[in-house]
């Protein structure tokens, strides 16, 4: 699930999301190597554009892209309060999903198999 807000970006959001997830996972392992349970946020500095990443409810990654018109300190401040409220939203959402049966309606499997045959049929 990917949601974006703000100025439109030129890159592929799915590719961006997969790399972000890998970035977070790799840094998680680095954190463990130095004895930290995790890195809750990451910062990548560029010449003009930079990004700040924050973990939400161990399930979602918030990425803020920003340029020289603002400062890292301000971004951190805003992200901190956003993470607080988003944490609640996603924890509640997760609880609702776990309460529901993890199944799709009957007929889904057959339809999906037909689609797989069509798409991967060469």
């Amino acid at each position, binding site marked *: 699930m990917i949601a974006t807000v703000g100025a439109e970006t030129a890159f592929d959001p799915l590719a961006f999301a997969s790399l972000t997830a890998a970035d977070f996972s790799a840094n998680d392992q680095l954190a463990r190597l130095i004895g930290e349970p995790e890195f809750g946020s990451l910062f990548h500095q560029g010449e003009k554009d930079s990004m700040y990443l924050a973990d939400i409810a161990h399930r979602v990654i918030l990425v803020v892209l920003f340029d020289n018109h603002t400062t890292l300190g301000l971004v951190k401040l805003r992200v901190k309060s956003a993470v607080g409220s988003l944490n609640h939203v996603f924890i509640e959402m997760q609880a609702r999903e776990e309460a529901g049966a993890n199944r799709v309606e009957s007929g889904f499997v057959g339809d999906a198999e037909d689609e797989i045959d069509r*798409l991967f049929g060469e």
Partner: protein
Amino acid sequence: MSMINYASREINCKLVYYGPGLGGKTTNLEHVFSKIAPTAKGKMISLATETERTLFFDFLPVDLGTIRGFKTRFHLYTVPGQVYYNASRKLILKGVDGVAFVADSQIERMEANIESMQNLYSNLAEHGYDLTQIPFVIQYNKRDLPNAAPVPELQTAINPGWPVEDLTRQRLTPDPRHEGEFLVEQVNGQWVERAPYFESVATSGDGVFDTLKALSKLVIKTLG
């Protein structure tokens, strides 16, 4: 593994191509990327070294479209095969829904295949998954090479099978793709199950989609 997101009406399935270095995992993905309809595929990402060896992973999203109200997508990943990248391999297996093991058929690579299979088993176990319980297929790649080992030899070494404890599954199950062979059978009085296998030449694309089709169907079945 939570593949179904009811809030966004999305189903995402993570398929991982595993196997020894230079076995053809990336080539599998490249073939899928080159042949699949442009509307169904996303951007292919390769985090590779200067010598084209996979450093972290390759990633290719494939869209199955909206099925019964759910936007359904497969995320295809490869792992770096080289032995010393185990931390990366383990990371990529997190949240996996199905595994295709790409074995190198060359006789000289037999040890590397076995080592990689053991590595897969133990890395999955560290995430709490059991290879015998998740969708899993094996691909014997490079069948066109003169030094390719015979399939029965590869089967014995790489896909010897695992004991079937579930009584309802203890019945002779023919392998629909190989006449006279069985996916579940009795060996020396013990019921044994083997992973479905496919022969391939990934460089020309032979067997690539057969493997992907079989694995994705196994994964979809777990949702039903």
